[in-house]
């Protein structure tokens, strides 16, 4: 949790919520959280367990790139269907 908050302090583009899983069981279930900590990035459960700084940041940045690429792919496949 500490790392997520530190990322939010460093970047104006990052917001970080700590969520008590037991107090928000429906949300935890929605994301399929089975163990803590679980980090959900832009709505996708991505990191299960705790990671050191470098690896955590890597996962966070990679997930954004992956999302951008999948958007691009969707756009491309839409365009090619035309």
């Amino acid at each position, binding site marked *: 949790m500490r790392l997520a908050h530190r990322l939010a302090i460093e970047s104006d583009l990052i917001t970080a919520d700590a969520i008590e899983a037991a107090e928000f069981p429906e949300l935890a279930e929605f994301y399929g959280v089975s163990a803590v900590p679980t*980090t959900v990035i832009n*709505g996708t459960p991505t990191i299960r367990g705790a990671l050191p*700084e470098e690896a955590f940041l890597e996962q966070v940045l990679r997930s954004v790139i992956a999302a951008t690429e999948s958007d691009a792919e969707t756009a491309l496949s839409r365009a090619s269907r035309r």
Partner: protein
Amino acid sequence: MALLSEQDAREIRQQLQALANPVTLVHFTQELGLEYGRETKLLLEELAGLSDKLSLEVYNFLLDKDNAAAYRVDKVPATVIRSAKDCGIRFYGLPSGYEFVNLLDALLAVSRGDSELSETSREKLKALSQPIHLEVFVSPT
């Protein structure tokens, strides 16, 4: 009865002496239907009493919809940790046990305005061009 023991309060007061700039705990809650709503508010009141640099604002989630929307708070109990600037840090639920340690850590880091991340991490984050919302599910133990 107080949630923080006298000894806890003493130790926390000492830690909070490191607060560089004022920090505000912006808390959203509601009277009914929250298992730990009362405890969360009480804990924050006790905490805010331990430093002159710490203040607490409490809003009713159901009545203060404008503030909840402004802080993008969509569930309660919610606590925003902010200095002059809102840097996007939220706690949802009662921050007890290890999460309380994380809360203190966040207070001090927000007050310093320094993430203390490595130079490499800072450089990588500068290249970020789109918003990222991190939701970290935790438990108090």
